């Protein structure tokens, strides 16, 4: 899969004309932290698959904070974005630790799918996968789960099929990955 460019990560930013500087500053900041963000995700979380999502979350938080500050320089925006990104990495590392540190490794071979601890782990897994998903995407996933077709879901949400599928894509990929991991006993 081709990775999106830093520009593509900023596509969701919509600001009034007087705040165009912020869009440029965010784009500059994303480009600056791009490589480092991937390295951090690899070293702290063990893989890079969550990097894009974590950058998007950091962008959202940075925009919220910077809308009140018209004096921030591109360098300051970069620092803020990096700080918020690291915050998200720490948050996920703690969440991962909560999962990883449950029980002892020798218990794993005897753990059945109906073991109470396994049930708790599964719940945590899905909670992590689905955390921070916007309400519209949550609702779309529920509708798809109830076997509505994408064109029907788009009609219910008042958007286009392509748009809602794009918005659900990341969550679906993560669910797909999780189910694959479970299948292979990871």
């Amino acid at each position, binding site marked *: 899969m081709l990775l*999106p460019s830093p*520009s*593509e990560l*900023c*596509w*969701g*930013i*919509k*600001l009034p004309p007087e705040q*165009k500087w912020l*869009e*440029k500053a*965010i*784009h500059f900041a994303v480009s600056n932290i791009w490589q480092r963000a991937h390295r951090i995700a690899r070293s702290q979380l063990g893989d890079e698959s969550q990097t894009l999502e974590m950058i998007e979350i950091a962008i959202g938080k940075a925009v919220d904070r910077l809308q009140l500050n018209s004096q921030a320089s591109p360098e300051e925006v970069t620092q803020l974005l990096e700080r918020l990104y690291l915050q998200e990495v720490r948050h996920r590392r703690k969440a991962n630790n909560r999962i990883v540190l449950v029980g002892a490794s020798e218990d794993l071979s005897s753990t059945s*799918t*109906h073991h109470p601890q*396994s*049930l708790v782990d*599964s*719940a945590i897994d*899905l909670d992590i996968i*689905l955390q921070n998903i916007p*309400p519209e995407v*949550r*609702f779309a*996933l*529920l*509708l*798809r*789960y*109830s*076997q*509505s*077709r*994408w064109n*029907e*879901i788009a*009609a*219910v949400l008042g*958007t*286009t099929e*392509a*748009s809602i*599928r*794009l*918005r659900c*894509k990341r969550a*679906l990929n993560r*669910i*797909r990955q999780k*189910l694959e991991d*479970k299948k292979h006993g990871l």
Partner: protein
Amino acid sequence: MTVAIADSIGKDAVAENQTFPLDEDNDTLLFEKLQEHVLAHYPNPERKGCPDPAVLKSLIETPGEVTLAALNDLHIFKCAECTRLLMELRQQKKHEASE
């Protein structure tokens, strides 16, 4: 895919240019697997946090009238009982449609 950072290009315009390598059938398979996963891992015999069955029925028949709050957010993804009821309601709807 070319996406501008701002200007007048919105999410929908961007999305129209997006291609989806996974077709709807593959999505269907994914949701079937998810359903199996929920049935196996999320038993809820006491039906804690379950939405009213009427809400699930509406989700199948008139989804535009259902709210996320009425569904108790993503509860269904963590409840084998609700998933089972949804499956029954879907079968019922298919059966009625075929008559």
